[in-house]
């Protein structure tokens, strides 16, 4: 058996080596090291405790960089109320029991720790910082810039910010997390809390006894997630799955989107399973199997722990998985890509796997990864050249290469599109690419 693993491992290594040819990651790390930025994570073990030699060596490096390369931008610094400016990381900053404490950052952002709260600055970057809230509450105001990268870690929860004002609370003993957004919006994720956008006026609370409770969204707030329409909020729970006759696990491919429909969720379907709306009367939370049988994908995503959800992912049939992925996208849940990838792993060679490639292409397209998106559309076309999504994939391929700035491939894709679909919905775009 080991010979087989050696063969497999060698092939994996060969593919990985292609990624290593790109030195972008190394260049970025090299720059961070020479700039003297401390690591992004706290020390992992006393076995590798920093020493005075490290401090001395890095101080010398920083000095050399400052002397030899004075134009290099520095990471932001911070000033705790009543103290001098600092870039010390992972140092505990505690508010007294009878008063608040403020932290001002040189990028204009500010944090106010409520009485008894404790926090640390884990990372300082040119574009922002990472704050760890160990306990208590903090009100955070982040100065928005195009490149802002700010985040707050509260226990196992992560709040990502580009520019906003919000309050975050974390009580480790109760494992209680709270988030209230006053301005702008943030992205938050945590255990049993799929990544989501929380906007002005909304709150998130989570602890073992209570789940996510977003307040109604103000109507004037612009929807920031594309392809997200008529979203069911986690509470009250709402059925979003499709209706499939009992005992009919066969896969039905998604409807072919036209360009005008292409921005719509891939499986927002009008019917509802009448049984699904009947919630169990028992206080026991439903199992993943119950929810899967009921096709209650929204509840699967929002009410199950990660292990249960993983079980569901590995037990669902192809149609269920694709619907689960669609529900994840509708909810703005970051796990949609992982779910589609699971479709390709578990049902490789099937129509569902090909459709998952198409859907991954759409996701990558909308996240701006146009070249990768093109690869997924090509994958679909190679696997299902005459599939029901082939025309759409061929058109999307033209768009993807055009957005990626790859003129040659866009040209080639446009020619192929027009040969096969001279009157197709992307024909106009294809002709414009060829002009």
């Amino acid at each position, binding site marked *: 058996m080991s010979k087989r693993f050696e063969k497999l491992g060698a092939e994996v290594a*060969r593919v990985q*080596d*292609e990624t290593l040819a790109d030195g972008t990651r190394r260049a970025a*790390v090299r720059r961070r090291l020479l700039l003297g930025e401390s690591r992004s994570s706290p020390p992992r073990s006393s076995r590798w405790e920093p020493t005075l030699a490290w401090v001395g060596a890095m101080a010398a490096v920083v000095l050399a960089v400052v002397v030899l390369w004075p134009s290099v931008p520095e990471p932001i610094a911070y000033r705790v109320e009543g103290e001098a400016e600092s870039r010390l990381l992972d140092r505990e900053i505690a508010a007294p029991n009878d008063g608040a404490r403020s932290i001002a950052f040189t990028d204009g952002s500010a944090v106010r720790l409520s009485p008894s709260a404790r926090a640390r600055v884990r990372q300082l970057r040119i574009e922002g910082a990472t704050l760890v809230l160990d306990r208590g509450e903090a009100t955070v105001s982040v100065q928005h810039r195009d490149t802002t990268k700010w985040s707050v870690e509260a226990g*196992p929860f992560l709040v990502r910010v580009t520019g906003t004002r919000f309050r975050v609370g974390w009580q480790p003993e109760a494992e209680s997390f709270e988030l209230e957004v006053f301005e702008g919006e943030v992205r938050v994720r945590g255990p049993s809390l799929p990544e989501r956008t929380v906007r002005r006026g909304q709150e998130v609370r989570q602890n073992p006894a209570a789940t996510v409770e977003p307040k109604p969204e103000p109507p004037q707030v612009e929807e920031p997630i594309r392809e997200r329409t008529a979203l069911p909020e986690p509470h009250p729970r709402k059925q979003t799955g499709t209706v499939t006759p009992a005992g009919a696990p066969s896969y039905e491919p998604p409807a072919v989107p036209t360009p005008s429909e292409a921005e719509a969720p891939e499986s927002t379907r009008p019917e509802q399973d009448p049984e699904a709306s009947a919630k169990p009367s028992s206080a026991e939370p439903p199992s993943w199997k119950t929810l899967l049988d009921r096709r209650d994908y929204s509840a699967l995503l929002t009410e199950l722990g990660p292990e249960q959800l993983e079980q569901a992912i590995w037990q669902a049939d192809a149609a269920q998985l694709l619907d689960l992925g669609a529900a994840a996208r509708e909810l703005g849940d970051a796990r949609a890509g*992982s779910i589609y*990838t699971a479709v390709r792993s578990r049902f490789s060679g099937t129509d569902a796997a090909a459709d998952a490639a198409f859907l991954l292409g759409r996701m990558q397209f909308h996240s701006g990864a146009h070249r990768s998106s093109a690869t997924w559309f090509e994958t679909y076309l190679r*696997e299902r050249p005459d599939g029901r999504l082939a025309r759409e994939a061929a058109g999307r391929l033209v768009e993807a290469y055009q957005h990626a700035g790859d003129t040659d491939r866009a040209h080639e894709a446009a020619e192929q599109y027009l040969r096969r679909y001279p009157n197709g919905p992307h024909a106009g775009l294809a002709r414009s690419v060829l002009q």
Partner: protein
Amino acid sequence: MDGQMPVSNIMGWPDQKAAGQPIEEESPIDDEALVESLRSGDPGAPARFFDAYGRYVERLLVRVLGPDPDLEDLLHDVFAEALGNIEQLRDPTRLKGWLTRMTVFIARGMLRRRRRHGWLAFVPDEELPLMPSPSTPPEARDLLNRVFAVLQRLRPNHRIAFSLRYIEGMTLPEAAEASGVSLATFKRWLKASNRAFMSSAQRIDRALYEELLNTPRWGSLP
């Protein structure tokens, strides 16, 4: 497997064995001199240290963790730890081995944290692993994702054993040394990883499982 290149086809590519072997640095490294300059506070030493071993450490992390959004931070962490602890290196001629152990140690810590917080196994849309390069066939990327989907279910020590031995292509003594355990312990880990890999593949990736069982399709296997 209709429409998807079988593992057997992908694995038939030339130079497959060589792919797992360490890539030698372009010029020989005088580890003793490098360590001495690091210890003496030479301002150019950290850059030389990173230039000498950055690619090697990055490769080890990629071998163990696969496509991972935290690779950059971990690569930074390894060098930050190494620079901070260079005084603790007893034998400067064994710099590479010391750095290897530290890399594996840090990767193991990450795997353990991920295992404790299963939700981290999911990556946000924008962090989905992208194609390594436009020339890499999607099938190859698929294979990569499928293998790491199986490895993700293994215990950290077993996953490390599998990655170092089979993907990085280390010998058993090298892999044991890198893992910081005895040869006997490493062999136990490896045996357990073989079983766990097949068991997980059987459950979540039947095609891969059957390809692994069906050795004749690979042609060149003894």
